[in-house]
């Protein structure tokens, strides 16, 4: 009993006070910015980027696995900021582009989903399907509910049945062997429902895009409501993305 009390006292209060505005360690590679247009750097980085995320003066957050190679080699062109707010409600806006006119780059943004905002005022129930995920996104999604991040405080939780869910949150690139179960889970969720893609693999196939053991055909016919980048997606990115979608970020 005394052991437990001692442990409890030292445990203290662990919940992050405000996950939407929490500070994160400066070494965290979050939202990237393109610092300048530089043909050579983009060309070189495009050739070694493991997932083909780097294009013509652009960086695709949906493909990036945050290996850091581009910024380590070309710090004057690529910067990753300790900013976990990376989610977007449109695939297109995950592509960070350099704008020659303004000499700045674009950033992703989440548009509030009006229907969800109205319906899911105090609770939002997620059903997770891992389809070829490496267990990093899965662990981070799990951590979003732990004592530190505690997204349950907002009424957001992962539920044990698709029948109870408002959304399917996908992790992993969708392995062929898992595609049917993924589709069936989606079908088992009652309307209205939304699809959320969590992590580079789910968004773009990530490192597995060229594998013949994955199948994204069905996924490609869907219109996801939210994309949360990362490899894996950080719990703060997940929570911030979900809350933005629900229109609950001031």
């Amino acid at each position, binding site marked *: 009993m005394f052991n437990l009390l001692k442990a409890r006292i030292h445990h203290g209060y662990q919940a992050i006070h405000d996950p939407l505005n929490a500070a994160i360690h400066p070494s965290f590679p979050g939202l990237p910015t393109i610092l300048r247009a530089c043909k050579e750097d983009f060309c070189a980085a495009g050739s070694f980027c*493991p997932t083909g995320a780097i294009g013509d003066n652009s960086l695709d957050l949906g493909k990036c696995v945050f*290996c850091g190679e581009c910024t380590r080699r070309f710090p004057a062109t690529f910067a990753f900021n300790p900013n976990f707010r990376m989610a977007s409600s449109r695939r297109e806006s995950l592509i960070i582009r350099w704008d020659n006119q303004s000499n700045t780059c674009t950033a992703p943004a989440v548009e509030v989903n009006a229907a969800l905002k109205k319906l899911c005022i105090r609770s939002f129930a997620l059903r997770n399907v891992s389809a070829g995920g490496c267990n990093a996104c899965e662990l981070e999604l799990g951590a979003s509910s732990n004592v530190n991040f505690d997204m349950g405080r907002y009424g957001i939780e992962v539920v044990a049945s698709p029948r109870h869910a408002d959304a399917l949150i996908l992790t992993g690139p969708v392995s062929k062997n898992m595609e049917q179960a993924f589709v069936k889970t989606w079908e088992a969720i009652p309307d209205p429902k939304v699809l959320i893609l969590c992590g580079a693999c789910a968004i773009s196939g990530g490192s597995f895009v060229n594998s013949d053991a994955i199948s994204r055909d069905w996924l490609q016919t869907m219109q996801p409501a939210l994309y949360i980048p990362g490899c894996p997606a950080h719990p703060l990115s997940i929570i911030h993305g979900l809350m933005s979608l629900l229109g609950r970020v001031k």
Partner: protein
Amino acid sequence: MKEKAQIVNPFLYVLPDLMELTDFLNGIRNLCLAGYSPLCFFGTARQELLCGMALAGKEPILLRCLFPQDMQYQSLSMEFPAFHLFERELWEEFGVTPLGHPWLKPVRFPIGGQQSMEQYPFFSSESSALHEVGVGPVHAGVIEPGHFRFICHGERIEHLEIQLGYQHRGIMNLLSQGDIRQKMPLAECIAGDTAIGHGLAYCSAIETLCNVSVPTALQTVRLIALELERIAMHLADLSALAGDIAYLSGQNFFAALRTTIINSSLAICGSRFGKRWLKPGGINYGLSKEQNSLLRSTLEEAGRQIERCTRAMFADAGVLNRFDSTGSVSKKAALELNFSGVTAKASGLAIDARCDFPLSAYTEFSPLCLDSGDVFARASIRAKEIEQSLDMIAHMLSTLPPVSAKDSVSLPPPMPDKLCIAITEGWRGRIVHVVKTDSESGTEFYRVIDPSLHNWFALALAVRNEGISDFPLCNKSFDLSYCGTDL
């Protein structure tokens, strides 16, 4: 304390001469009888069988022969069950049939495999007293997919069959395409919760093939990363075990402690999983003097709290009641079935790659062991290993000079026609990577053996005769990898 083995892991080979099939099989038999166990056994696109046999402290022995002409041979599994999964893989991938194999079933349903997901031939029983329960592939929580089929008598489990393969992403194929030196992000996703364990095996293999050696201080940093990963994941498991038995204080204590540990990784390399920390040739992020002392004080503080929490948990009668004698695995089974890691050590089998096949930076190490083979033993081993790893890290940090990532070495193209076996002790057990280069320094094959491949069978054995409600607890006590198995 065990003597440090006088061998150098990773192991570099040129392919041994082809043997006759009978000599090959007899060679394996004789090695098994001499105490060796299979490290790897697989077919290659050249229609050859390759087998690596291992004994602690000895360089693994490679054997090689052509596929049998009639594509069948007498199975080794009846005599040496350690081969049962390897033979299933071989049958599934190349259609080579081990005759007399007790359960020739798919492992991961690769493209062109023998069967499809829906056709898995589950065991079944005609008895009207028994019923079957199917769970998965999608689970109730946030867990990777896999299917569990129970045959039960009332609440009691008679038999559990585990169907995996849902996570198969063709990672071994991807690893063997293109420049082998640029596969780090992929190696880190073999099992994302073991980014360092698999990443280090990959790095070590590539460095050996490229014939470079990494400065000791950088290697030490990589071992620190490996132990940090072990601590973090063991904490995650203690948290989950506590959660499964509704010991909620423990669940929250250990989850918070894991956060502390993985945030220390983040502070160094930017990733809570240690992704991008290592690279072939060294590391991407070094450790300054300040980072060294910060890490030391963080770990000291965490160590004190871990001690308080484990003491409280393992003194709780309710906890002990649920852990004790639940889900037992015998030492005999562990030995025969090639289990490793916590699964083996909790059943009295003192195997650990950190002393059996040490990477050069290890000084000395002796594995911790318990005999009871139950959930209690696996939980206790985790708690004790956390303490052990904390000590190891503290020791390494205390003598470590400031380390700069700039001291990493660059890699020339790998040597042609070489084979390398790299072994690391991940937090789940023995990780084996087997890489072969072709005559143009391309990759002929890249074979990965995650400890979970063998260890899943331990779960099936552990739940026999347990109540089905104890399945989650048993499952968590092993915490095996789906994607590491499915690849």
